[in-house]
């Protein structure tokens, strides 16, 4: 899963390893049927790049496009379609506030608002100090804990406006 941390190296070394893993480090960019096969791997490829870099750095994407022959337009088409791809660096911690049905009927809207107020950012944004990225998501699959938030890979359930602030305070210090 996404590590959430931003690695410094915007170079292509990490990407080279990923292409090798997917057997896409080709002598010549693919064409025709081979290109179609490469393109099938586009989403796993982008997921791995994002895991390694913390986001999808545009220069790396351009390099990958040149190497594989997958048109950059196609890449951006895919990246912008799916909500889990990021073209900008993310904060050290990712806070996901569930706005699914079970959480909604248990007051998740107020939780989201409390987080926005505490961090001073809107849904989808990252704090200026790069500590937190905040996003609303649909159902974390832990509806029995509604309303739920997830920070990195940890769940916090049965949130109230008061509790959520306490949880965030803990992360602000670390």
């Amino acid at each position: 899963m996404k590590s959430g941390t931003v690695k410094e190296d915007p170079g292509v070394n990490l990407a080279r390893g990923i292409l090798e893993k997917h057997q896409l480090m080709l002598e010549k960019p693919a064409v025709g049927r081979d290109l179609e096969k490469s393109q099938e791997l586009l989403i796993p490829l982008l997921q791995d790049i994002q895991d390694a870099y913390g986001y999808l750095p545009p220069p790396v994407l351009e390099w990958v496009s040149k190497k594989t022959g997958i048109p950059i337009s196609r890449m951006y088409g895919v990246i912008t379609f799916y909500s889990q791809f990021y073209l900008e660096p993310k904060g050290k911690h990712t806070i996901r506030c569930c706005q699914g049905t079970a959480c909604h009927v248990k007051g998740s809207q107020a939780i989201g608002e409390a987080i926005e107020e505490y961090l001073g950012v809107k849904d989808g944004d990252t704090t200026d100090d790069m500590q937190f990225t905040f996003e609303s998501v649909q159902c974390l699959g832990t509806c029995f804990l509604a309303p739920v938030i997830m920070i990195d890979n940890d769940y916090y359930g049965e949130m109230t406006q008061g509790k959520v602030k306490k949880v965030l305070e803990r992360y602000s210090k670390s």
Partner: protein
Amino acid sequence: MRDKKLKNYEDLKSLHKEIDEEKSKVKSRVLVCMTGCRAKGAEELARTFREKLDVPGMEEIEVVDVGCHGQCSRAPLIMIEPEELLYGDVKPKDVDEIIKETLINGRVIPRLCAEVEGRAAAKAPDIPFYSGQERDVLKNCGRIDPQKIEDAVAAGSYDAAAKALTTLSPEDVITIVKDSGLRGRGGAGFPTGLKWGFAQQAAGNEKYLICNADEGDPGAFMDRALLEGTPHQVIEGMLIAAYAIGANNGFIYVRAEYPIAVEHVTMALEQAREYGLLGNNILNSGFDFDIQLRKGAGAFVCGEETALIASLEGKRGMPRPRPPFPANAGFRGKPTNINNVETLANIPLIIEEGSEAFHAKGNEGGRGTKIFALAGKVKETGLVEVPMGTTLRQIVFDVGGGVPDGHTFKAAQIGGPSGGCVPAQHLDLPLDYESVKEVGAIMGSGGLVVMDDRTCMVDVARFFLEFTQKESCGKCVPCRVGTRQLADILNKICDGKGEPKDLKKLESLAKEVKAGSLCGLGQTAPNPVLTTLEFFRDEYEAHINEKRCPAGVCKELISFSITVDDCIGCGLCKKACPVDAITGDSKQPHFIDPDACIKCGACHEVCPTNAVVIS
């Protein structure tokens, strides 16, 4: 280490025996849910058990990480075998007592048991949450270690697949599944055997099998539980399906938000390959099959089968018109069969127990059982498996224990964004594919969110339309523009700006979006509006005509105030208020300035005497 590869059915049987012998050495097992309960400290709990049991004399007690036990409202939940005691809300500080009292002295600790009519109930048959269920598909969920194929084999996994691959023809398998009456659990409820038949009949040798594990319906988590708790059951179902249709390659497309499911499935696939249960010439049947795991990237519409296939091909996940159906032209343009996780998890059961046993459960509107994810305003939340046709009342009240805190049941939302809200007057509705349709909802994946008198039904409709509008892929106009219009009108009503003519507009627009959309997303998106309009029209009218939100939810229509007589002047509300709208001296009644108040509800939440009222 010897080669683990199983060469034939006999090998599987002797492995089963070997594991059973190994297991008979274990006296007791402590089963700790390591899926949903992780969110409530299960990891630390299991660690504590392991540390404290790592002493001489305790070798016969095993601590096992398992999948979901079902009754999530008591998380973290553990089961102690062989007695099958269920302890809930267990904390690391309880571990010493459990070891001494229960594991050594064999005594039950009432404090950790479920409370049933004032008495402690330790075992599932005595707990209404369980006694009202029939756990067939979930039988092994919470009882085996999902990270160990040996545990799955000991519980009988792969027996059905071995039987199918070595003693039945693909046609036999399809006939059994057809006769069982199994219908797809992913939403549409299409007969599974029939669908397999189409794929099998389709021309060509290159075919694919896809397991749809995108589970995008907010409020549903049964697929997650199956993948996390019994991944081999799903893999076995895929193996049988692939054999039936003649597919040599399969995919599991898992939702990005399910990291534990990804972890467990990845592990299970590796183990299945190691044991030769995936790969070439499986159990010497001459049949080859392997599975790749793919992670979704966050798009609800990718649960729709043609969009999912586009996503697997590395494209934007947009649906396309059908026909051609995937059975004829799916992944890479080849015949493809796509089934939901729960559908596939039913398959081993059907092969093992026969189509008649399966068909005997349920009713005309659906056979076998269905797993519901019970959540919202209900006492017991969690996974509930009941025969098809069980009534809503049985699920919400008998199994779920009803609505907590003295509030009253208003509606149950079933089927997610494509479904509808079933009101109290239909509590005796049997939940099966056909009956549910009669009240304008759909079975969907089985999310069941309970709503009480504090839930505003107009707000719920608005919530779903905002959801579908955000998730609409934009390809067809009725869905892209229509859902936006619907959401706008609903927002207007919730903001107190609704006009009487809006209701007519909502209705006619909803019907057009339903009729004109390309895929199931748009075709079903208006259901939440139509069902709430039908059953809760009075709430819409209160918003429009009286500018009043009866449930006290819609911000523009409510105000907060403090009842002077109830206020003890503790100052908690003043501290909680983010905009300093509350004034008052210590031990004196406090006041809310209505002009400054942003109606966030923080004061209401913290007030110890319920002096803050919403009107």
